[in-house]
């Protein structure tokens, strides 16, 4: 018998199960886009048949990091920029778990940029949602890696001299195998994309546009939006790296010109890291964590390694 009976538990799941019975008072401001991520996740998780206990949500620091305080799953609220290394190890240790990592644009593309690049490259089987509101919110409005050029804040009083990072392009070049952008103002699309991302076997990156009504005064900054899959103006092959790259480039330019393009940009079937490791014999077929509860497990001993030292 498994030690992790919640995993693979098949039953009708009510989305309310993902809402804590003892509802915490969110620290997010009224009108904050973060509510959109929370809502979309609460809808998506039961629709893909997951119970709260087979999901581990791993977050970084900042407003986005509070996500798993308001979502009733197993949760790990880590430290600034470090959600990905914690998340991918948890998945390696027990690949029966569904792992969703989340963080903000400072957390994910700034301090955690190196981890983002490498987690995408390795194609760990998990979903990574970056709450992108182009600003550091919880520390009160400083310029972030996605703030537009010229953005003024207390840390850039003369305007931001840096060009914003291109998250989708970065994910693509790094090796992510599912890349999408969605927005809190587009809840139906957000839910569908999260569902796809969770079901995708590999590293799924979602750049989730979340308006910040407090520090980016224009709370409607991501409206109007265009769904690139549904619009006749955009025609590209989602499996073609080059076409996806061109579309991403267009999207990333357009974001700061008042046009917001959302939707799926790239899907690739490259096997996940977990799969690759198993094929190489570098990772056990059964979840490693199960082994500690298996009374019949045979534990190899270092004594067996001593021959070469004698």
């Amino acid at each position: 018998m498994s030690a992790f009976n919640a995993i693979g538990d098949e039953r009708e799941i009510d989305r309310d199960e993902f809402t804590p019975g003892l509802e915490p008072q969110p620290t997010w401001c009224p009108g904050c886009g973060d509510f959109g991520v929370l809502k979309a996740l609460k809808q998506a998780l039961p629709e893909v048949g997951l119970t709260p206990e087979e999901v581990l949500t791993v977050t970084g620091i900042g407003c986005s990091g509070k996500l798993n305080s308001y979502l009733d799953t197993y949760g790990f609220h880590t430290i600034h920029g470090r959600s990905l290394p914690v998340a991918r190890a948890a998945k390696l240790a027990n690949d029966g778990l569904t792992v969703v990592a989340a963080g903000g644009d400072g957390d994910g593309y700034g301090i955690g940029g190196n981890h983002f690049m490498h987690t995408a490259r390795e194609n760990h089987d998990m979903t990574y949602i970056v709450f992108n509101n182009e600003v550091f919110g919880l520390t009160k409005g400083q310029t972030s890696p996605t703030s537009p050029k010229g953005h003024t804040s207390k840390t850039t009083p003369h305007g931001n001299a840096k060009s914003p990072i291109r998250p989708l392009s970065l994910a693509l070049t790094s090796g992510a195998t599912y890349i999408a952008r969605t927005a809190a103002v587009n809840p139906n699309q957000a839910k569908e994309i999260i569902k796809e991302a969770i079901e995708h076997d590999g590293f799924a990156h979602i750049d989730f546009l979340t308006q910040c009504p407090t520090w980016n005064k224009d709370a409607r900054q991501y409206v109007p939006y265009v769904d690139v899959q549904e619009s006749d103006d955009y025609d590209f092959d989602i499996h073609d790296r080059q076409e996806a790259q061109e579309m991403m480039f267009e999207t990333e330019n357009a974001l700061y010109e008042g046009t917001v393009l959302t939707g799926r940009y790239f899907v690739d079937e490259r096997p996940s890291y977990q799969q690759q490791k198993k094929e190489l014999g570098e990772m056990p077929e059964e979840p490693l964590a199960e082994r500690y509860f298996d009374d019949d497990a045979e534990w190899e001993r270092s004594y067996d390694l001593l021959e070469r030292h004698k």
Partner: protein
Amino acid sequence: MSDHELIWRIAGGSGDGIDSTSQNFAKALMRSGLDVFTHRHYPSRIRGGHTYVEIRAAGHKVQSRGDGYNFLLALGDSFARNPKEGAYYGNEEIKPLSENLDELNEGGIIVYDSGLLSEDDVSELDLEERAEENDWHVFPIDLRAMAKEHGREVMRNTAGVGVTAALLEMNLEHIEDLMRDAMPEKILEPNLEILHDAHDMITEEYDFEHDLRIPEGDHEGEQALLSGSNAIAYGAIDSGCRFIAGYPMTPWTDVFTIMSQNLPDMGGISEQVEDEIAAAALAVGASHAGVKAMSGSSGGGFALMSEPLGLAEMTETPIVLLESMRAGPSTGMPTKPEQGDLEFTLYTSQGDSARVVFAPANIEEAYEQTRLAFHIAYEYQIPTIIIYDQKLSGENENVPVSLLDREPDPSLGSTLTEDELEDLPHDESGKFHRFQHDVENGVSPRSLPGQKGGRYLATGNEHTPAGHISEDPDNRVFQMDRRLEKLEAIRAELDEEHDSNQTYAGDESADFGIITWGSAQGAVVEATERLNDQGHSVKAVGVSDMMPFPEAELTEFIESVDQAMVVEMNATAQFRGLIQKELGRYGEKLTSLLKYNGNPFEPADIVEGYELNVDGSDAEPDAQVRIEPAAGD
């Protein structure tokens, strides 16, 4: 030097095959019944540079590199010839003969490769004169020519071993066996030939005037030759550790590679990742999900682990971290030992963050304390750190095979099953009270993601019993007190249930004490024995528990002596500072003997330090050590 022990030094350039030759020779000595101890000196470069390995062998236990050495096998300088004038790195000429002579003991033997040293090189050294003065026995042998005759120049190592065996009247049997195990057929034959030719040539052509012969010894049980890194890796494997994440850095890399080479075949996972922050964070993530996990690094890399270390403490996630010290600050001297990261390891990470720190002193302690580190980490849900150094990482010592004949320990410590979870408190939203206030020993048992009924939030913020972020003052005090209470419980367990981790030596009634920690212990123990043999009355303690500190034991030791000298490899007397901080006194009683030139202590350094302390001489010690007086002196 006494003829009871052999201290054989093989010197040359990195890349000359010094490591593999010395490893085999050490094993051959061990197989012949001797106790062996190896010391490796190498520069931070791949090829060239001055390198040597010393093997000390005797019929009795050897615990340090010893004082000086008595047999030099000086190989060539094949990879570092023609240095460029004025080049920063390239001007370091390899002088396997001249560089090593200062430490050669009276009556010693020199074998040098005359095929690689011109007569001019040798005449510059006044070798004849010095040999006469020191009663050295010099054997210029053209090892290169001998090797070339049989095929390849690199085989002059084997020729050197053959010469060594002949001069020491040592049986070739064990060496041949090891060569057969290690070499493919194609190169085995010429190597065996050259071994015998070299041996026979020496035996036939030379008269031996030297006294040095192979010592005699006999082991009670079967032995294995292990490095400190081997012992730590094997301790981890036997503790049920099946996950390691790391980033390469000298000298921690040794443990990382040993684990990586073995774990996958044992159903475990090894991850080489982008940096040390990630490495320690991965260990946290894997442990959180229910696997015994470790990570580690050396000084600069360990600095990056400060964040995940604090996270592990706040979320009460068990992890074991290694800190293999090298000389600092910053990149320092990557291949040289120092005990300079003690304070950093004890106090790194923000807030009142606490961890358990063990400092093993030798191979046996490295194995034992690694097992203890995993037990404590998983039982008490606290990060434990094993702090050791480049010396212990790389030195080899023989230990009885029976030391490792131990059952694996796959227990996850204070972790719950789903059945147990049912009966424990949950809040209204169904969340499990993972971080209860009132629990025995401060330990609140945990659930694992994927278990039914165990849902909770682990957070690096201060949190309520269910893991909700909270800045409530009462909760804060309860949680903080509970986390700190674990250290007291751990101290109590170490005192009551385990034999003391501290090592004692010398005369119990002595009124002069020597206190040391980590890998300096072996040299201290030998120096203590020597001082007592000379008629002094000295005792020593080697401390392994850095945190929580063994207050009672150390108080008793210091109270029992008039004066104590703290021996450690750093410039700022960090361990002496720790003793005074933990015990709150004894400033006037403790002096320090410090060495931080990149070389470990030899017993003679400590004997000299003792003499200067006791005689109260103003003379500076001539070994590169420093005496730091007691407070008020």
